[in-house]
C-alpha cells in the first residue's frame, strides 16, 4: 500500500429475501449504517465506488454510481465496477487505487445486489454471464454445472467422498447461526447435505450458496484514522472458461492473488488469525484453502474435519450461510474480518473473493494495531 489506508466504518443490511426493498433501498440502508458506524460527516466523503453485477439484468437499473451519489447531500464523484461475484472486492481495490493515487482522501465503498425478485431461471441465466458466452454457455452449462465438473474431477483425482464434502456446508451453517446478518441461521447436519436434492452431480442443493438480496458498505480513509488498516489489496485473473485451463482442481488466480497479497502485507499465511474465503460451492472452499497453502493438494478437507485453533475460516458463515448477493459479498467479507479482528484482538485477517470459477480473484489483508 502506498500510504496508510484506514477502515473507519462498516455497515450492512441483513442478507436474505427482501421483497419489499429495492436495490436502491438496500444501497441506502448499508450506506447509512457505514456512515453512522464511522462517526464522520458524510461531507468528508470525496468519492464513491459501488460494486454490482446484475443491476441492469435483474433490476433494470444501470448508472449505480450516480444513483448512489445522489443519496449524499454533496453528490461526490462516483463509479460502479463489475467483476461478477468479485464486484465487491474489486470495488474496494478501486477505492484503494483512488486513495493511493491521492485522487481521494475518504472513499465510500458499497457492494449491493438485488436478486430474489426475478424468477430463478432468469437469475441463473444472468449469473452465467460470469462464464464464457462462447465456450461454456452454448452447451447448456450453468454455474452449478461448472462447479459440478470441478467437483467430479476433484473427487476422481483425490478420492474426496460425499460425506467429506458435506462437512463444508455443515460448518458454514453452524458458523452462520451466530451471525445476526446471515440469511440462514439454522444448523444443517452433514447427512442433510448429502441427502439434499441433486443440482449438478456430485453437487447437491446444500453445496450451493443461495440467491440473496443484500448490501454492505465501508468507509476507507487516509485522513480519518482507525485501529484497522488495509495492508494489501491484490487482483489476479484467469481464463473465464475451464476449457482453457491446465487444471480444473486448482485456481491459479487464488494462488497468485493470495501470494502477492501476503508479499504486499509482508506477512505469511501463518500470521493470519481470520480468513473469509469464497465458498460459492462447497468444493470451492476446499480448493481455495489448498491454493492458499493451508493444505496440500487433495487435503483441504482436513481443515473442515479438524478445527484449527489458530485460524478461523468463514466465521461469518461464508457465502453458504450468509447468503451470496453477488456484488455485496466481497465488501461484506472485509467488513466481517474487521469485526472479527476487533472481537478477537488479533492482528491479521484476510478476505478472499472470486468471480466466476476464479476468473477474477481479489484478496485483501487487514491489520489491527494492537
Amino acid at each position: 500500500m502506498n500510504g496508510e489506508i484506514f477502515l473507519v466504518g462498516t455497515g450492512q443490511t441483513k442478507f436474505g429475501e427482501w421483497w419489499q426493498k429495492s436495490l436502491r433501498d438496500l444501497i441506502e440502508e448499508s450506506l447509512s449504517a457505514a456512515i453512522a458506524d464511522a462517526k464522520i460527516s458524510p461531507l468528508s466523503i470525496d468519492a464513491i465506488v459501488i460494486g454490482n453485477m446484475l443491476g441492469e439484468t435483474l433490476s433494470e437499473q444501470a448508472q449505480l454510481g450516480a444513483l448512489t451519489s445522489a443519496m449524499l447531500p454533496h453528490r461526490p464523484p462516483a463509479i460502479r465496477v463489475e467483476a461478477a461475484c468479485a464486484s465487491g472486492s474489486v470495488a474496494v481495490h478501486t477505492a484503494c487505487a483512488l486513495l493511493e493515487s491521492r485522487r481521494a482522501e475518504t472513499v465510500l465503498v458499497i457492494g449491493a445486489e438485488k436478486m430474489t425478485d426475478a424468477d430463478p431461471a432468469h437469475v441463473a441465466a444472468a449469473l452465467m454471464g460470469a462464464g464464457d458466452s462462447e465456450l461454456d454457455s452454448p452447451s447448456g452449462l450453468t454455474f452449478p454445472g461448472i462447479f459440478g465438473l470441478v467437483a467430479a474431477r476433484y473427487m476422481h483425482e483425490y478420492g474426496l467422498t460425499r460425506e467429506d464434502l458435506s462437512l463444508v456446508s455443515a460448518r458454514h451453517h453452524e458458523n452462520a447461526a451466530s451471525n445476526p446478518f446471515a440469511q440462514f441461521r439454522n444448523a444443517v447436519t452433514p447427512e442433510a447435505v448429502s441427502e439434499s436434492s441433486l443440482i449438478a452431480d456430485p453437487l447437491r442443493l446444500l453445496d450451493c450458496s443461495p440467491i440473496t438480496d443484500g448490501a454492505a458498505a465501508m468507509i476507507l480513509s487516509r485522513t480519518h484514522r482507525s485501529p484497522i488498516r488495509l495492508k494489501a489489496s491484490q487482483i489476479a485473473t484467469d481464463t473465464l472458461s475451464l476449457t482453457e485451463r491446465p487444471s480444473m482442481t486448482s485456481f491459479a488466480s487464488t494462488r497468485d492473488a493470495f501470494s502477492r497479497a501476503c508479499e504486499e502485507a509482508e506477512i505469511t499465511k501463518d500470521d493470519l488469525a481470520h480468513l473469509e474465503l469464497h465458498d460459492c460451492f462447497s468444493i470451492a472452499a476446499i480448493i481455495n484453502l489448498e491454493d492458499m497453502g493451508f493444505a496440500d493438494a487433495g487435503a483441504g478437507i482436513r481443515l473442515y474435519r479438524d478445527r484449527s485453533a489458530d485460524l478461523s475460516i468463514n466465521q461469518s458463515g461464508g457465502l453458504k450461510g450468509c447468503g451470496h448477493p453477488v456484488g455485496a459479498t466481497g465488501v461484506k467479507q472485509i467488513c466481517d474480518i474487521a469485526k472479527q479482528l476487533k472481537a478477537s484482538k488479533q492482528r491479521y485477517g484476510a478476505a478472499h473473493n472470486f468471480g466466476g470459477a476464479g476468473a477474477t480473484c481479489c484478496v485483501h489483508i487487514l491489520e489491527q494495531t494492537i
Partner: protein
Amino acid sequence: MQGGTILSFTTVRHPPTGFPDAPIRLGLVALDSGAQVIGQLLGVNPMIGDRVAPRMRLTRTTEQGLRIYEVAYESLVRVAVQDTFVFEGYILALTGPSGVGKSTVSKILSKALSDYVTPVPILTTREAKQGDDGEYRYIAHEEFITLQDRGLLAAATHIPSNTEDRLYGYRAEDITNIWKQGRIPVVVTEMHLLQGLSRTFGRRAILSCGLLPPGSSRRAMLSQLLHRLRARGRDTEESIADRVKNAGADLDFFTQRKELFDHLLVNDNLENVIDALKGHVLKTQEERA
C-alpha cells in the same frame, strides 16, 4: 470433428431457459488436438477417462423455429466392447476397502476351488513388505509405466499417499493365459482397477463381488477396518490412517457404482463368505457350461 477423452462430467438438473426441460449430461472433453471443449455426453454410464467420438445432435429449437445442432460426444469404449468382444471366460473380482480381507478370501478360495480358480499376480511398484504372501510381483516404476504405455495392462491404479506413492495393476496377458488353461482368474481390486478391467474385458466378463466390513453404520465399518489393519501389523500408523481415509471412498463406491457389482457380501464370518463365493462361482460355471 475430433474425438477425445472425458476429463470430467456432470448432469445439470435444471438446464437454462431454451433447453429441453430435462437433465442434460455435460462433459469436459480433452480433444486429441489438446484443446478442451464442453459438450453433451451420450451413452449410459460415462466414466472419467473414457474415449469419446463426436456426433452432431439437435440440442434445442429457438422460439423462431431455428434448430440448433451442437457437437455431442459419444462414449466409444462400450460400443466397441459390445460389437467385437469375444467372450473368452470370466474373471472373479473381489473389491473392497483395505483391511476387509480381500487377500485372505482370495487365498482360501483359491485353495477351496483349486480345480477352477487361479489368483492373478498383482504388479506393484512398492517395496516388498513383511506379511506379503506371494500375491505381488514387484517391478520398477519405469517398467510399470512402459507396460502401461504399450497397452499391456488390463487395469492400473495410482495410489498417492503421504507414506508411499505406489502403482498397482494387472497384466492382460496374465489373465488371458489363465483363461487358456480353462481356469478362472481371481483378482483383488479397488475402484480404479475394477473400472479398468470392465473397460478392457467388458463388464459381462466379470463376476464382481464386493466385500464389506461388518457394521450397521459407515462409522462402525470404518472402525472395524481400523482394528483389522492394526491387528494385521503390516503397516505403520500413518499408513493405516491413509488407508482408512481411502476406505471411505471405497465404501461410497459400492453405492455410487452399483452397476459394477453382482454381489455384495459382508465379511463377518470367513466361512460364510467363502461358501457364498463358492456358490456364485459354481453357479456361474454351470450357466456357462
